[in-house]
């Protein structure tokens, strides 16, 4: 579980995060949406400690995040663009990660490695991989350590439909295991149907954080996509 309290971050002129308050629980799949520059990535980076907030706190499993990096061992992160050392081989990368996390062989989740058939190209250096394959590597890496919390930044952006489907299945599976999953996208994607909750950000402000049922009720739309679209419309007309 995760709690965000009064989180504020300003980059020079831009108020990237403006007093965000939120509470995520295990078993939730949160779809973090908003237009470009709405603060999604900043929020994720704040959670991961890459961006240092000006004000406010983030609690992961009840403890505030600070300079102690150990909380990140509970988090699996799949970045938007994964780039790895050119001369490192895929197998090497996974070995290194295992090394860094001090995770025994038995504890790792190789499900995605198998599903994406990455084992067969373990000896390939990173620089020879296509963008899609690199995304697969990133995805496999995020699930590798069986973390309580998964943060996936635009996970299906570079993936082909088949791989996309595989990833979706995996997310479903993890959801069943009562994990907290945070997915960002700036467009409405097919992953949204996995979501239990939707968090909508605009210009650094959190417009709403509602569970799907409430959202459906309020908008009268059955399809999530349309429901969100309606909210967005309402919002822009208000603004």
């Amino acid at each position: 579980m995760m709690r965000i309290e009064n989180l504020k971050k300003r980059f020079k002129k831009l108020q990237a995060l403006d007093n965000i308050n939120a509470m995520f629980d295990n078993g939730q799949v949160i779809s973090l949406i908003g237009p470009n520059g709405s603060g999604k990535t900043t929020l994720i980076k704040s959670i991961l400690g890459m961006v240092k907030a000006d004000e406010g706190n983030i609690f992961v499993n009840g403890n505030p995040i600070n300079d102690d990096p150990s909380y990140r061992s509970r988090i699996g992160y799949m970045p938007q663009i994964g780039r790895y050392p050119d001369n490192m081989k895929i197998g090497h990368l996974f070995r290194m990660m295992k090394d860094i996390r001090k995770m025994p062989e038995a504890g790792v989740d190789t499900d995605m490695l198998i599903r994406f058939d990455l084992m067969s190209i373990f000896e390939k250096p990173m620089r020879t991989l296509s963008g899609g394959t690199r995304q697969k590597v990133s995805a496999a890496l995020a699930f590798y350590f069986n973390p309580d919390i998964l943060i996936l930044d635009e996970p299906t952006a570079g993936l082909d439909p088949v791989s996309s489907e595989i990833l979706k299945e995996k997310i479903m599976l993890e959801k069943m295991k009562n994990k907290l999953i945070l997915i960002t996208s700036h467009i409405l994607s097919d992953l949204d149907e996995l979501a239990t909750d939707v968090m909508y950000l605009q210009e650094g402000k959190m417009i709403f954080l509602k569970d799907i049922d409430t959202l459906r009720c309020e908008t009268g739309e059955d399809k999530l996509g349309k429901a969100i679209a309606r909210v967005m419309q309402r919002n822009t007309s208000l603004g």
Partner: protein
Amino acid sequence: MFKLTRYVLYDILRSKVVIAYTLFLFAVSIGLFQLEENQSKAILSLLNIVLIVVPLISLIFTTIHYYNSYEFIELMLSQPLSRTRILLSEYGGVALSLISSFMIGVGFPVLIYTFDATGLALLFTGIALTLAFTSIAFLASVKSRDKARGIGSALLLWFYFSLIYDGLVLLILFSFSDYPMEKFTLFLSALNPIDLGRIFIMLKMDVGALMGYTGALYKDFFGSGAGIIFTAGIMLLWVVIPLLLAVRVFRKKDL
């Protein structure tokens, strides 16, 4: 602690640039020792390599490596690793690979052809300058926002330390030629690692001329155990201070 260093090092040692750098140094060193009839001349040319090329490559290579590793560093940041550890590991990887290039390219030929005090001073200076300028490059990189700016500032720093600084010293010495400046210039030399390394080697190579000007001041100073500790100490500061500053900036930085 430096598990990560091993992986960074492993990656860099396979990069074409580092291999090319090693081969370049090796070819030049062997070529100089083979072509020159007397070794003092070869050493003299190597001195220029150590004082000019080593800082330049250290600065540029480190800066480019830093920006190319940006996403990787981000990935590392999402792992349970502290920022200090990540940056120091990166530093370790880059510095070790540059030093191995230097030791294979220059160290090896020097040890074979001219294993003496001057040769050892040359190697010591080369290693120290590699460490110092890698450190300076990390500071420049974490401080500048994009790659172009980073490489630009690395080049400017090189230009400053290898040329402009000495130009300013020359200017100062001529402006205050009526005053005794020995100790002051000694102090000035400590403010530039290239100058410090140069004087350290000069004490082996040009001791006659140095004694002529300063009497025993420089020789007694640098030649004594205290002087060697002083030189090594200041060099160490040139390695440690920029690195610590880089770590400090990096810890507060938004990536």
